[in-house]
């Protein structure tokens, strides 16, 4: 850029002035960094210091290099409108990570000087991003699923003033909730089953002027990005209309686990064995007729009912559902109350191993006991069903330690089977392969959203088919930007939770549409205006970026070039790291912006005994850990040169080979945990980096370098004491294997 004007500022506060020769640093910025203006200041972050910088900006400075504290400190003070800022971390990661001794002075100063060079080099290669001009501006919300979750999401979004399209597969709203006789109480006094209110909810949806309902319809094609999704809504009869929406809430609900897989509990052998859904049907039916519930086999009076908890759930053998569905204890309690309401003399027993009624569910539990529902801690072995006659429930009474306990003459057995999510196609399972994750219905999965995405037609699943987020702090983190799943498709849950979940998901959808319309990124780089672009002429159409994007953001256009769908992009840079021909970049983060920092480091010659180690540190966890190590007074090798990266996934191999070629003695990569319990904020970034680095050996061999010249490490943000140890260990290793032969080339 022709009019580039760099201002470099060196702070003398917080001990920087005493520990470093700031004048020399300013000179480095001027001489090596080619900064147009260099200034020292005794207290850069205060009003005066900032005014000084502002004044320079007003006079034409458009790149600012701040040689002071970490980018994590004083962030508000050092943010300037429309100016690219490069933060040089002289405090936490230079003077605070080095001993405050006279002997250490020289190396500390060298470290600071290199960081100033790197900061200036970066400043030259970045610019303040401007929003992608092609962003969509549609703010309508599509809700898929007309059960309690979908209806709630639609109503809550509508109440905030947003227009909603609600697509329901069946001919009526209500979903599973409409099949219930009553619901578990959700408000004080938590004592009795309550009316579901489903009719009222459905009516409210139908009459809301903001909501358009499509019954007997499915989403047969979904393409686009937040702010500009295009959705085909097709009726049973095959009529399709295309609608544009800004964001999507997927609330496709659940299917009860197939009780037919539990013949040992008599299901299918006797009509007097039902699942919880079957019992609801019985209760509704009786209520409609105004009659008591009767024994299904012969219409006889019911005198004894047994509820079998965890039927086909919490199964460690791999035959049935491995998880707990969370709601079933309360549901059985509610259903037992149906009978107590009908006639208090009906014996109702709930056989459980752990009764799970969290929160105020404990009141409901007590209320049931007060009504005479009997709770027996035991494990049911089998239900003996002699034709249409009474049943016997054989179980291990865990309290009385009676392995052969039996409840005889039982009129009805209710199996508390769990929830199986309606999550569509598991895109992580190759076509034709068997989905080994237990708890999936055997039938061929039918896609819910029919996404036209390169990576598959539905939202990725986490475990057991649930489309949950893997992040504890970010339950609505989604791997398909702008699409939020809610209700039991996301995680097993009851109505009260589904209502909360729907409301949260609706907010996220609204937020996503709003941000898309401003061209801003979604979590975790919320508000980031940069977006990836690529040099078409250099692209070899290798598809690595489209395959590796953790968010399925990149499709291929008609000419098989990548199509970035910026609205779906989360700005992690994984595509940039993947690209073998280095054509992908962001305005403020590129192969060049990092590469030039690497090259800016002054590499002393082979005989100096001053190795240089490059550390590429994930900015989310490893970099803060390094900062906090400094704050905590941990010291580490002065030969390290750290560059924060958006994610290890964004690390392009060229950085490593360039570093090694230019005489660095070692390269460390610090990223987040990967694998099943991954910690990577971009889901797959650290995993991909690990995979890519596993191939580095060939490169090293080609360069005739030792294996240990590159080390990849998993680091957590809390590894404050460990991070300096890792650095020191590696520095010792480098000392052991000796200096790189590539110096001075």
């Amino acid at each position, binding site marked *: 850029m022709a009019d580039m004007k760099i201002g470099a500022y060196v702070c003398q506060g917080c001990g920087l002035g005493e520990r470093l020769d700031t004048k020399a640093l300013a000179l480095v910025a001027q001489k090596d960094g080619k900064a147009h203006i260099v200034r020292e200041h005794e207290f850069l972050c205060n009003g005066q210091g900032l005014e000084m910088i502002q004044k320079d900006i007003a006079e034409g400075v458009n790149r600012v290099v701040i040689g002071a504290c970490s980018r994590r400190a004083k962030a508000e003070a050092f943010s300037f409108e429309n100016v690219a800022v490069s933060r040089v971390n002289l405090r936490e990661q230079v003077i605070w990570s080095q001993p405050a001794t006279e002997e250490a002075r020289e190396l500390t100063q060298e470290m600071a000087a290199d960081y100033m060079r790197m900061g200036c080099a970066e400043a030259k290669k970045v610019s303040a991003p401007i929003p992608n001009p092609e962003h969509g501006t549609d703010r309508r919300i599509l809700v898929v699923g007309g059960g309690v979750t979908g209806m709630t999401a639609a109503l809550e979004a509508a109440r905030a003033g947003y227009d909603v399209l609600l697509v329901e597969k069946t001919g009526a709203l209500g979903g599973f909730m409409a099949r219930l006789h009553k619901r578990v109480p959700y408000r004080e006094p938590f004592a009795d089953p309550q009316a579901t209110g489903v009719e009222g909810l459905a009516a409210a949806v139908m009459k809301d002027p903001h909501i358009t309902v499509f019954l007997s319809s499915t989403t047969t094609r979904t393409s686009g990005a937040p702010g500009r999704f295009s959705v085909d809504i097709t009726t049973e009869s095959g009529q399709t209309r295309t609608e544009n929406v800004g964001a999507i809430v997927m609330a496709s609900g659940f299917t009860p686990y197939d009780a037919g897989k539990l013949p040992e509990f008599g299901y299918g052998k006797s009509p007097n064995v039902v699942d919880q859904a079957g019992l609801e049907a019985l209760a509704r039916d009786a209520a409609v007729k105004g009659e008591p519930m009767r024994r299904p086999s012969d219409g006889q009076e019911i005198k004894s009912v047994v509820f079998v908890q965890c039927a086909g759930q919490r199964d460690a053998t791999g035959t049935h559902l491995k998880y707990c569905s969370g709601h079933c204890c309360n549901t059985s309690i509610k259903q037992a109350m149906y009978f107590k309401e009908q006639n208090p003399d009906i014996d109702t027993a709930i056989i459980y191993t752990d009764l799970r009624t969290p929160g105020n569910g404990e009141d409901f539990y007590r209320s049931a006991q007060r009504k005479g529902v009997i709770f027996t801690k035991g494990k049911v072995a089998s239900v003996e069903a002699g034709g249409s006659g009474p049943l016997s429930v054989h179980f291990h009474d865990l309290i009385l330690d009676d392995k052969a306990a039996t409840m005889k003459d039982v009129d009805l057995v209710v199996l508390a089977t769990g929830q199986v999510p309606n999550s569509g196609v598991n895109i992580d399972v190759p076509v034709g392969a068997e989905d080994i994750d237990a708890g999936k219905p055997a039938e061929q999965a039918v896609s819910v959203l029919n996404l036209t995405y390169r990576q598959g037609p539905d939202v990725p699943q986490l475990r057991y088919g649930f489309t949950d987020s893997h992040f504890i702090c970010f*339950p609505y983190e989604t791997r398909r930007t702008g699409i939020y799943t809610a209700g039991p498709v996301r995680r097993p849950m009851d109505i009260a939770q589904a209502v909360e979940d729907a409301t949260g998901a609706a907010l996220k959808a609204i937020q996503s549409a709003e941000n898309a319309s401003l061209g801003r990124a979604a979590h975790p780089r919320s508000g980031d205006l940069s977006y990836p672009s690529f040099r078409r002429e250099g692209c070899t159409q290798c598809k690595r970026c489209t395959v590796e994007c953790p968010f399925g953001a990149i499709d291929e256009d008609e000419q098989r070039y990548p199509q970035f769908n910026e609205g779906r992009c989360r700005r992690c840079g994984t595509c940039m790291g993947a690209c073998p021909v280095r054509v992908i970049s962001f305005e403020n983060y590129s192969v060049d912006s990092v590469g030039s920092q690497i090259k800016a480091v002054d590499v002393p010659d082979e005989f100096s005994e001053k190795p240089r180690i490059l550390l590429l540190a994930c900015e989310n966890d490893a970099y803060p850990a390094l900062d906090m190590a400094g704050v905590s007074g941990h010291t580490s090798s002065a030969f390290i040169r750290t560059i924060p990266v958006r994610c290890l996934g964004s690390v392009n191999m060229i950085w490593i080979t360039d570093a090694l070629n230019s005489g660095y003695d070692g390269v460390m990569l610090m990223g987040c945990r990967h694998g099943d319990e991954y910690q990577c904020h971009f889901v797959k970034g650290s995993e991909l980096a690990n995979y890519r680095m596993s191939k580095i050996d060939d490169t090293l061999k080609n360069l005739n370098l030792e294996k240990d010249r590159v080390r990849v490490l998993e680091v957590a943000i809390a590894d404050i004491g460990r991070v300096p140890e890792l650095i020191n260990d590696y520095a010792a290793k480098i000392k052991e294997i000796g200096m790189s032969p590539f110096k001075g080339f």
Partner: protein
Amino acid sequence: MADVVATQETIVVVGGGISGMTAAVEAAETGKNVILLERTPSLGGRVNQLYKYFPKLCHPTCGMEINLRRLRANKRIKVLTLAEVSKVEGRAGDYKLSVTLHPRYVNDNCTACGACGEAVSAEIPNPFNYGMSRMKAAYLPSLMAYPQRYVIDPSLLGTPDATKAREACKYGAVDLDMKAETITLSAGAVIWATGWRPYDAAKIQPYGYDRFDNVITSVEFERLSDPRGPTGGRIVRPSDGKEAKNVAFIQCAGSRDRNHLKHCSRICCMASLKQTTYVRERFGDEGQSTVYYIDIRAIDRFEDFYQKVQADSTVRFVKSKVANITEDESTGDVILHGVDTEGYHRYDNRHDLCVLAVGMEPNVDIKSIAGDVAVDASGFIQMGATDGGLFGAGCAANALDVNRSVQSATASVLRAVQVVNRVAKAEG
């Protein structure tokens, strides 16, 4: 604090823990102006004091880092710390909050360089470590503190240490003349995210928390296990500093109990299961954890975690509410007495340390502050019980784990957005 501009389209979030931070950030990222109030000197709340989260065993500071970055980057959020709400008056769309701003004695000139901390000698109990360690009375609340500014404890005022602190600061950041002030904020909607506090374990008299050094609470055990904690992550006994390899966990310490908290606090089973992994992490096969429980409530996918812990041979489960604890005065060991109800085996089990999985109760009695709100018998805010514009989020609304708290906070934002959008529409 004249620079705090609040209108009826502002959403005020009370409480700067994970729920409040989430609510503030989510609302701001939806384009709303937010004022986030926190009573203590730093955001972060109780989760910041946890070593790890269940079931992933990841670190709370990881999410906090992201949330702080979101917060720092968003100009729509104004954060006030040491800010305590004493009154909320008005109705949906038009609230007035009385807020007392307590003095920090350190202004925004502070660079967190640490010179004041070095200068003073007085020490106070460190609340971040639940008083299990002491710290200088001029302090940074935690490594992740936001704002990243020191605090001068009021106890220093008038002492020579106060002068030393002021003189040590080159940036004029120490201001000993700061006074508490009360301001009034306008808001269209209020999100109440004041969180929870651990039930007072001393009230559970049979367990002798007030009498025996080696009976501690689950929140204290988090600090004890954390490398950032008072012992640098060494799991040792308070009585004698000996390694505590044989640890007992007592579930429902205060919860599900008509004598204490009648509700189930939901998180405690998972918290104890998680804490057994700390014991394993430190001591390997030499560690021994025993969990005394009534029902293990590892709900939904958490069941996986329960099964994993069950498979650990160093972890034992005893279905029993412990009757009482006695102390062996000569060794400091704690002896748990009770009956294993599965088959009735009486036990008098000796442990190095006993951890009480204490229950959750709402941190703030909101009924004494706001009228426009309904609470349940445990004091949690009931959703939708009034048509006001004050919404509970996180553990102010229910006994919730972190994941569900964040979900609840996100939901509360939409409810607040509905109110302020109505105001905006009415105002044209």
